[in-house]
């Protein structure tokens, strides 16, 4: 199994929208937003099955999410994590004096992490902040 380097963007998906209105404490939120959408060609390079847990790492952090095949592709070299705490654990907080963090266009590397758990949304933020 290999490590791949991709360009990460985050954004809205309708499943994520439904999940936030249905309750962010529920596992459905993790199912909707604790994922990374990869192009089939990037899956081949990664050498992993679809729906495998992966660790995504940038200069700003690291998070475990489920890798799924994109439904809005092809977009080789580009990866998508729906907006939420999973994406925001690794995006670039630099605003370049505009007030806006760089939510899109963050270089990340993706490794298979088959045995690592994907945390629930609230749990993930609490853990990263050191709050019970």
């Amino acid at each position, binding site marked *: 199994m290999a490590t791949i380097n991709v*360009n990460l*963007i985050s*954004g*809205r*998906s*309708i499943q994520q*929208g*439904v999940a*936030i*209105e*249905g*309750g*962010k*404490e529920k596992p459905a939120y993790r199912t909707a937003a604790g994922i990374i959408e990869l192009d089939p060609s990037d899956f081949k390079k990664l050498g992993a099955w679809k729906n495998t847990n992966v660790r995504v790492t940038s200069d*700003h*952090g690291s998070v475990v999410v489920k890798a799924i095949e*994109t*439904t*809005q*592709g*092809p*977009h080789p070299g*580009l990866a*998508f994590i729906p*907006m*939420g*705490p999973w994406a*925001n*654990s690794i*995006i*670039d*907080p630099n*605003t*370049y*004096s*505009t*007030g*806006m*963090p*760089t*939510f*899109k*266009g963050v270089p990340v590397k993706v490794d298979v992490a088959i045995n690592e758990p994907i945390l629930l*949304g*609230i749990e*993930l*933020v*609490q853990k*990263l*902040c*050191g*709050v*019970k």
Partner: protein
Amino acid sequence: MTKTVTDVICPFCGTLCDDLEVVVSDDGKQLLEVYNACVIGTEKFLHSQSKDRVTRPRMHQPDGTWKEISYDEAAEYTAQMLAKAKKPLMFGWSSTNCEAQSVGNEIAEITRACCDNTAATCHGTSLIAIQDIGLPSCTLGEIKNRADRVIFWGCNPAHAHPRHMSRYSIFPRGFFTGKGQMSRKLIVVDPRVTDTAKMADVHLQVEQGKDYELFDALRVAFKGEWLPDFVAGIPKEKIREVADMMKSGRFGIIFFGMGVTQSLGKNHNIDAAIAVTKDLNEYTKFSIMPMRGHYNVTGSGEVFGWQFGFPYAVDLTRGFARYNPGDTSTIDLLVRGEVDAMFTIGSDPGAHFPISAVKQFAHIPSVCIDPHLTPTSGVSKLHVPVAFNGVECGGNCYRMDNVPIDCRKVVEPPEGMLTDEQFLIKVRDRVKQLKGAA
């Protein structure tokens, strides 16, 4: 027996659909069915009825448990926190009504707070660009009736504004657009083949982060000047085809979203988009509009605008309003560790801010006013659940085209729950006493 409430406003996204029908029980206490809304709006209405909803304020205890307290105690904690802080931050406002925003601004003025809304992470950069070069815009009604060229640039309404296309931009049959979709050309610019792009007449799969280059290439193409073979991954023939398509319309509209506001270049991308619109007005009529996310983020900008003079990132610490994105904007304030009290209402920075900013407010006095359990409530010292705006209380809000619309109350909130506005009035009155401003 049940009764049906018609013409209900949906409080999810900036499209503010106003044709929902909601079935409620005869005593007005239970919400049973929602018609006409998208899947997200329906979920929002139905979730207000969930059995596991938190209905009283809760204090986070040192051992990680929560202790239930009264609204009066919650207001006291909030007022004390804001009054004592040197640089409190009051963030959110986008999922509440304009009346509550106005009360919040009073509190901010008395406590000399920094105030910001969710434009910080969505269209803040658009607001900077609008201040730079203006915004030739229109209303959604004009688009429905007139637009025959529709461009979605860096936005995916099929996912984020699910009924936008059926109500205003693609499918409706308007006065001059009698054939609906057949009378419009749809152009989508996105690095992914989004579900919106799949419907487009032309999809430009731009290289991520190269929007500025493509906007500029279009401006060159309008004038028929020389272009390199590829710009931002798009062949020049395609760019010229799209430029001609835009110029040949009778009325065009560019909708833009997070793809341009959050990618590198930021406000300069929007500058370029507005310049494209300006150029096109030499050939035909063109407008441009940001796809606002939260249902009342536009209203928050309006209320900040008429009360403080700036639409977001307002700093009142010196006793008068200052605005300097990068300095007075929420993410920068938090990441620099300047804030000593965090007040959140009608938004979820815990989930939607970079984690380095969240870490900063997880360890200072904090209040989260939100009907839901969220990552923000999970790291806040005090969580104050309130009635759902637009479901359990009415109030004014602004659609993405700056049209004010009054939301409707369709169902009673659970017994004894306050609305945002009622809770803020309690806090305001107490803050006035503490600061001797009464």
